[in-house]
């Protein structure tokens, strides 16, 4: 009995690095006590992290599967569990279980295509895994465009990695924007959906969106105006989850469970879901 696997029983994870990304986002590096990756995952998949006595919550795995040494989670402070995670120090143990959910189809539907990634705020977290996967297997994909915006320069997650690495890659274009003017910013100012329309992308590519619901809504509308079909656009959803395995009932939308059948959905699939998310 004791050896029998149960999906609800987690493993121990050790936090080996904490990076302060923005005033309310930190990125945590997690490995097992013997220094290995807790498990393999695919881009877009999630994991349940918990602090015993505080609670368990689902987070998208921010690091790329091509990173074989550790996993990273970029987490915004917005509740009980995240408050606790933000207060901890390197060396702290937490629990981890996963991977959960349907990943982005990086090796099938995305393969061979130009990619457009559009993110807002903490919405970059789930996309970072895919972006770095595509950068790792650079020759499998065409041109990569990344449009990323946040409230201010300070709120741009992974700013250093974006500027030092992504922006220097061949055939990768990074377009950053912030909501309002600020003194140390000479880049674009304005909301993400408008910027996407201004940039006016050609429709021969696959778009992946992640961010606040309002950004998703207007970006999707903008892409459709540009001629994109819903079958070319993907997103990843977030609902309350407890089990992560399609049983506890919380993330049920129509006949789908976001934790199991998502979190990645193509927009034409979302159209088939009842309007309750």
């Amino acid at each position, binding site marked *: 009995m004791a050896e029998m696997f*149960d*999906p609800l*029983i987690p493993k121990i994870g050790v936090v080996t690095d904490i990076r302060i990304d923005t005033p309310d986002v930190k990125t945590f590096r997690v490995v097992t006590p013997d220094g290995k990756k807790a498990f393999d995952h695919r881009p877009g998949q999630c994991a349940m992290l*918990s602090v*015993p*006595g505080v609670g368990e919550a689902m987070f998208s795995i921010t690091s790329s599967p091509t990173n074989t040494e550790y996993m990273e989670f970029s987490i915004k402070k917005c509740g009980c569990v995240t408050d606790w995670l933000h207060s901890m120090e390197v060396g702290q143990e937490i*629990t981890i279980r996963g991977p959960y959910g349907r990943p982005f189809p990086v090796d099938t539907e995305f393969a061979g295509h130009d990619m457009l990634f559009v993110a807002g705020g903490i919405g970059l977290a789930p996309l970072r895994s895919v972006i770095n996967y595509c950068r790792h297997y650079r020759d499998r994909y065409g041109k990569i465009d990344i449009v990323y915006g946040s409230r201010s320069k300070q709120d741009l997650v992974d700013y250093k990695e974006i500027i030092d690495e992504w922006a220097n890659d061949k055939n990768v274009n990074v377009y950053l924007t912030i909501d309002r003017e600020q003194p140390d910013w000479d880049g674009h100012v304005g909301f993400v959906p408008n910027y996407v329309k201004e940039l006016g992308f050609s429709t021969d590519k696959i778009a992946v969106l992640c961010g606040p619901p309002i950004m998703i809504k207007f970006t999707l509308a903008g892409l459709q105006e540009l001629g994109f079909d819903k079958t070319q656009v993907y997103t990843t959803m977030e609902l309350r989850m407890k089990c992560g395995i399609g049983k506890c009932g919380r993330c*049920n939308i129509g006949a789908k469970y976001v934790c199991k059948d998502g979190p990645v959905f193509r927009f034409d699939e979302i159209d088939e879901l009842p309007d309750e998310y």
Partner: protein
Amino acid sequence: MVKISLEKINDFFAAVAAHGTLYIPVDTSAGAKYEKWENGKKLSDALNTVRSPKDFFFPQTENLMEFKTEGNKIEIIDTRTEHEDFVVFGVRACDVKSFEVLDKVFLSEPVDSFYKNRREHAVTVSLACTKPHETCFCGTFGIDAAEPGGDVVCYKTADALFLDAKTEKGEKLLASVVSVTEKAEKADEAEVEEQKKTVRDRLSKLPLANLKADAFGDGKTSKFFNAPEWKELSESCLGCGTCTFVCPTCQCYDIKDFNTGSGVKRFRCWDSCMYSDFTKMSAGQPRLTQLERFRQRFMHKLVYFPTNNDGMFSCVGCGRCINKCPIQMNIVKVMKKLGGGENG
């Protein structure tokens, strides 16, 4: 088929209990409930228990694991142990079917080991109904109350129990109590058949006998999701969890941590989609009003579940919600209102 006279029912229970803990429905001041059998405890005559037997496999609360923390270290303590063998006697046809519904959830990959542990160690002895109530509509979901499923099927007549093993587990159980049973004669079998006929006749004349679920099922999401009827159906719903908690097939759960002072217990407990905080997140609330929560419960039972499980509905027609809802709203009223003319 074997037989035991009702006069000797206590001997039969004693023989069963010798091979594993036996639970039977007994009468209490608050209705029938399952209790551990002890010498002299009497089988209830009630049609069904107030709480469903889902508790045996999916208890209202259970500890999943424990944690010990010291400094920044965590130890996970797997508290699972092999469950003891047990026998649940007197499960009605509807409730037997509910185990199948629950199996679809908990035994589908990835398997829930807590549930599986209990299922594997249980022997279900069902009990055919003789006097189905006005609130019964198991027939709507293809269940025959006169001939339930289970490892052993039991028929109770005026003076005897007749037992028929249906699975290997059931055969093993009956073999172990052979000292107190006798082989059923041809005449006995005829009596059982006669009783089944009578019961089926009663079933066909129940007030809800013509209730049909044909309007629901796979692919009916768009037909019913935005139906204007949800407003009227849900308008006086209190948002309590009575229907979900007495329901044999409702299985939503919550996982929570409890600080014991010396450690942390992580436990699972029943939860209800009727509750306002069920889907609440720091980022928002997809089901804002009671209408959405109410709709979710019935859409799940009548449309979403069958879509994912080859047409199997997540309702077995036991009638508990009809009896227990504080405002007397229930799945029958929902089906009649939404299904319209197609629902008798």
